[in-house]
C-alpha cells in the first residue's frame, strides 16, 4: 500500500513579538490509501490544528508553520492559493464538529450540496440534482427527493452531519478529514454515523482522518491510531498495537481511564428507606410559536418536555438518569431543584410540597438540595474569585460564624482536592477540572442531603473525567448523600449508580436496578442504548 499523505516534522506555533509559542511540536504520521486514521488526544493537544494545517485552513499570517505535508509529491504547506483551492474540496475535504453551525440556515439542503458541484465541476442544474439525490441516498437519508428542499433546521443533528458528509463527498475527494464529527451527537446516532463512515470508506475507497477525544469511538472505527499530547505524537501505530500493547505511559493512562462497562456489584435495597423525593404525574409542556403554521394544526404547537412522570427517590439512593438529548433529563433536574416550575403534577420533598413553599421552607429546601452543572466554566461567575464564590453561600445562609468563614472555605477546598493557593484566582484562570471541583465545593458548602449532578463530566477530558467521578463517589459515600446523576454516558452511570432510570421523549421507559438494566433490559430502546456504547475492545 502506498502512502497518500505524508506529514513530516510538522510544527505550528503562534507568532508574537518576542517569541513563538509552539502548539504543535514535531508531528509526523502517514496515511495509506483506504485507511481510517484516528487522531486521539485531550483538548489542547493540537489535533484540530494539525488537521486544519493539512489543507491550510487557517489564517497563516500570525501562525508559524514548519515541516512538510506531502500530497501527490507536493508540499501543501508551500502550495499557492490556486493549487490549494483545487485540492480543498476536490482532493481533500473536511467535516466539522458542530453540524448545525456549518450549514447555512437560509439555504436549502440540496442547494448547499449542489453548490460545490456547480462551482467546481461545472455541472448543469439537472445533472447536479441527480448527483445530489444519489449522494443523499448514499449517506442513508430517506426520501432524498423530498429532503432536497428542506432547510437545515428541519433536520436532526445526525441528519445534518450526514448532509455535511454528502457535501464533503460531492467532488469525490481522496481524503476526508473528520474533526470530532460525533461529539455533538447522541450515542445511538453516533453508532449509526460511525457505521456509515466505515461504509463510505469501503464503497468509495476514500481515506479518512478521524479526529476525536473519545478513544472508544476511535478504536471502533479506525485501523491506525495517532495518540497526541500537548502538540507531540506520543504513539503512532495500528489499532492492535496501540490498544492491546501500548508502549507509551500516556497511552496506557488514556486506555485505563476510559470508562469501561465493568461489572460492579451495587448492593441496593429500597426497603425501610425514607422517601426523599416523591414525584407524581409530573408534566412539563412548552408552547411553541410558529408564525407560518399559526392558523393550522394547533395540536403540534405544543412540545412536551415531560410526560406523566412518576418517580420515588429514597434516602441514600444513587440514581442514574440516562437518555438521549431532548429526553427531558435536564428538565427533570431543573424541576426537582425548583429553578423551573412544572406545568402540572406534584413533587414532595421531605414532606414539603415544592409548589407551596413558604420563605422559610424554601431556604431549608435550597440548602438540602444542591446541583452540579454541566459546563464547569459557565457555572461560575467569571468576575468573582474562588474564595468569594465559596464564602458567599456560607455567609448568606449563616452556616458558620463570620470569623470562621475563611477557615471553612479552606476546609471545603481541601475536601474537593483544590490547592489552597488557588483561592484568589478567577474562574478563567483555572482548568476545566479545577472549575468543576469549585462547583462541587460550592454545592457542598451548604451541607446538602441531595446532590443532583447534571452531566458533570461531559465537558471534561477523559483523564480528568475519571478523577471527578471518583471525587463525587467518594464525597457521596463520606457525607451519605442522595445522588441523582444525569448522564448520556452509560458506562459512567453503571460505575456510579445503583438504580437507573431510562428516559425517552419525556417519559420513563425503564426503571430498575443497575445490574438488571444492564444484564437484562426489558425494552428495545434500552437494549439499543446499551449496544451503542463504544468500547475499546
Amino acid at each position, binding site marked *: 500500500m502506498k502512502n497518500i499523505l505524508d506529514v513530516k516534522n510538522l510544527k505550528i506555533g503562534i507568532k508574537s513579538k518576542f517569541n513563538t509559542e509552539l502548539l504543535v511540536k514535531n508531528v509526523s504520521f502517514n496515511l495509506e490509501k483506504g485507511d481510517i486514521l484516528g487522531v486521539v488526544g485531550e483538548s489542547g493537544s493540537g489535533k484540530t490544528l494539525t488537521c486544519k494545517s493539512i489543507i491550510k485552513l487557517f489564517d497563516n499570517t500570525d501562525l508559524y508553520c514548519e515541516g512538510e505535508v506531502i500530497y501527490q509529491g507536493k508540499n501543501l504547506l508551500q502550495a499557492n492559493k490556486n493549487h490549494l483551492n483545487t485540492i480543498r474540496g476536490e482532493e481533500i475535504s473536511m467535516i466539522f464538529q458542530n453540524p448545525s453551525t456549518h450549514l447555512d440556515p437560509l439555504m436549502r439542503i440540496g442547494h448547499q450540496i449542489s453548490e460545490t458541484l456547480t462551482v467546481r465541476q461545472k455541472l448543469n442544474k439537472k445533472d447536479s440534482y441527480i448527483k445530489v439525490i444519489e449522494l443523499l441516498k448514499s449517506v442513508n437519508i430517506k426520501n432524498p427527493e423530498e429532503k432536497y428542499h428542506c432547510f437545515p433546521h428541519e433536520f436532526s443533528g445526525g441528519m445534518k452531519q450526514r448532509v455535511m458528509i454528502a457535501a464533503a463527498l460531492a467532488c469525490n475527494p481522496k481524503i476526508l478529514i473528520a474533526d470530532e464529527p460525533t461529539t455533538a451527537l447522541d450515542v445511538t446516532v453516533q453508532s449509526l454515523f460511525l457505521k456509515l463512515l466505515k461504509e463510505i470508506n469501503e464503497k468509495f475507497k476514500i481515506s479518512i482522518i478521524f479526529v476525536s477525544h473519545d478513544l472508544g469511538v476511535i478504536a471502533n472505527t479506525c485501523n491506525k491510531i495517532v495518540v497526541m499530547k500537548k502538540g507531540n505524537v506520543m504513539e503512532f501505530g495500528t489499532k492492535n498495537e496501540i490498544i492491546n500493547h501500548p508502549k507509551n505511559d500516556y497511552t496506557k493512562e488514556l486506555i485505563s481511564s476510559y470508562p469501561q462497562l465493568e461489572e460492579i456489584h451495587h448492593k441496593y435495597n429500597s426497603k425501610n428507606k425514607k422517601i426523599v423525593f416523591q414525584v407524581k404525574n409530573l408534566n412539563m409542556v412548552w408552547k411553541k410559536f410558529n408564525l407560518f403554521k399559526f392558523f393550522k394544526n394547533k395540536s403540534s404547537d405544543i412540545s412536551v418536555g415531560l410526560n406523566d412522570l412518576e418517580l420515588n427517590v429514597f434516602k441514600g439512593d444513587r440514581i442514574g438518569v440516562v437518555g438521549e438529548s431532548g429526553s427531558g433529563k435536564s428538565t427533570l433536574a431543573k424541576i426537582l431543584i425548583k429553578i423551573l416550575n412544572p406545568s402540572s403534577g406534584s413533587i414532595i420533598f421531605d414532606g414539603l410540597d415544592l409548589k407551596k413553599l413558604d420563605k422559610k421552607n424554601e431556604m431549608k429546601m435550597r440548602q438540602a*438540595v444542591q*446541583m452540579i452543572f454541566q459546563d464547569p466554566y*459557565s*457555572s*461560575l461567575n467569571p468576575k468573582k474569585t474562588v474564595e468569594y464564590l465559596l464564602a458567599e453561600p456560607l455567609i*448568606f445562609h449563616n452556616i458558620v460564624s463570620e470569623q470562621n468563614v475563611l477557615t471553612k472555605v479552606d476546609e471545603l477546598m481541601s475536601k474537593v482536592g483544590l490547592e489552597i493557593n488557588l483561592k484568589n484566582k478567577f474562574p478563567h484562570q483555572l482548568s476545566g477540572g479545577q472549575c468543576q471541583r469549585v462547583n462541587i465545593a460550592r454545592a457542598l458548602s451548604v451541607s446538602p442531603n441531595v446532590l443532583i449532578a447534571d452531566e458533570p463530566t461531559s465537558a471534561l477530558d477523559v483523564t480528568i473525567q475519571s478523577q471527578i467521578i471518583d471525587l463525587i463517589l467518594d464525597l457521596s459515600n463520606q457525607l451519605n448523600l442522595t445522588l441523582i446523576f444525569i448522564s448520556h454516558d452509560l458506562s459512567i452511570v453503571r460505575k456510579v449508580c445503583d438504580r437507573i432510570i431510562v428516559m425517552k421523549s419525556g417519559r420513563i421507559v425503564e426503571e430498575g436496578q443497575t445490574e438488571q438494566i444492564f444484564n437484562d433490559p426489558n425494552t428495545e430502546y434500552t437494549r439499543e442504548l446499551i449496544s451503542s456504547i463504544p468500547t475499546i475492545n
Partner: protein
Amino acid sequence: MKNINLKPSLIAGFLILFLWILIAIFANFIAPYDPNVHDLENTFQHPNLKHLFGTDNYGRDIFSRIIYGSRIDLQMAIFGVIFPFIIGNLIGHISGYFGGIVDSLLMRFLDITMSFPFFVLVIAIVSILGPGLKSFYIALALVGWVSYARLSRSQVLVIKNLDYISAAKTLGYSNVRIMFVHILPNSITPSVVFSMTDAVLVVLLGSALSYLGLGVQPPTAEWGVMIAEGQIFITSSWWMCTFPGLAIVLLALGFSLCADGLASILNVRE
C-alpha cells in the same frame, strides 16, 4: 486582572481627559484674563502673544473663555451621562431579569420614548422646564436612559440563562442579590463603553442646545455658546468659532479613545 496590556488608545484617551480635568480644576490659575470682563479697546484681536486665541466682539480673551468653559462642558459630560446610565441600567436589569409582564410594560414604555426623535424630545422638555443646565440634565435623564436600558436588557437576557445564575438560584440567593452581585458586574461592560461614546454626544448636544439658546445662557463661557456668538463674525474673525470648536473635538477625542481602550480591556477573559 493583572498584567493587562494597556492599549495606547486608552493611555492617550486618559491623558487627554486628565488634561481637561486639570484645566477645569485650575482654570483660575491658568487663564490669563477674566473670561467675562469686557475690554472694548481690544475687540476682534487676531491671535497674538497677548491673546493666544484672539479676542471676541467684546474684547474678551478667547483662550481664557475656553479654559473656563471646560468646567461647564466637563460637568455636562459627567452629569448628562450618569443619570441616564443609572436609570437605564436599573430599568434594563429589572426588565430583563424578571421578564414577562414587567418586561412587556417597561419595554413598551421604552418604545414610546424611543418613537420620538431624540433631539426634538430633549428640546421640548428643556423648553417646558425653561433653559438652563438643570433642565438639560432632567431632559437627558428622561430621554437618554433608553439606550442603556436596551443594552443592559439584552445582556441580562443572555446572562440570566447561564449556569452560574441557576447555581445562584439553587443556593437560594435573593433576586436583588443575584441581580446586583452576580449579573451586574458581568452585564455592565457594554454600558460603560457606550457611556464614553455617549459623553461625546452629550457634550455636542449641550453645545447644540446652547447654540440654540436653550442651554447655558450667555455671557457664561461655554464652548457651544462661544461658537454661537462667533457665528456672525465667521467671515471676518475665524478664531472666534474655530478654537471653541477644536476644544470640543479634543474632548470628544479623549472620550472616544477611552471608549475604544476600555472595550478591549473589559472584554479580556484570558
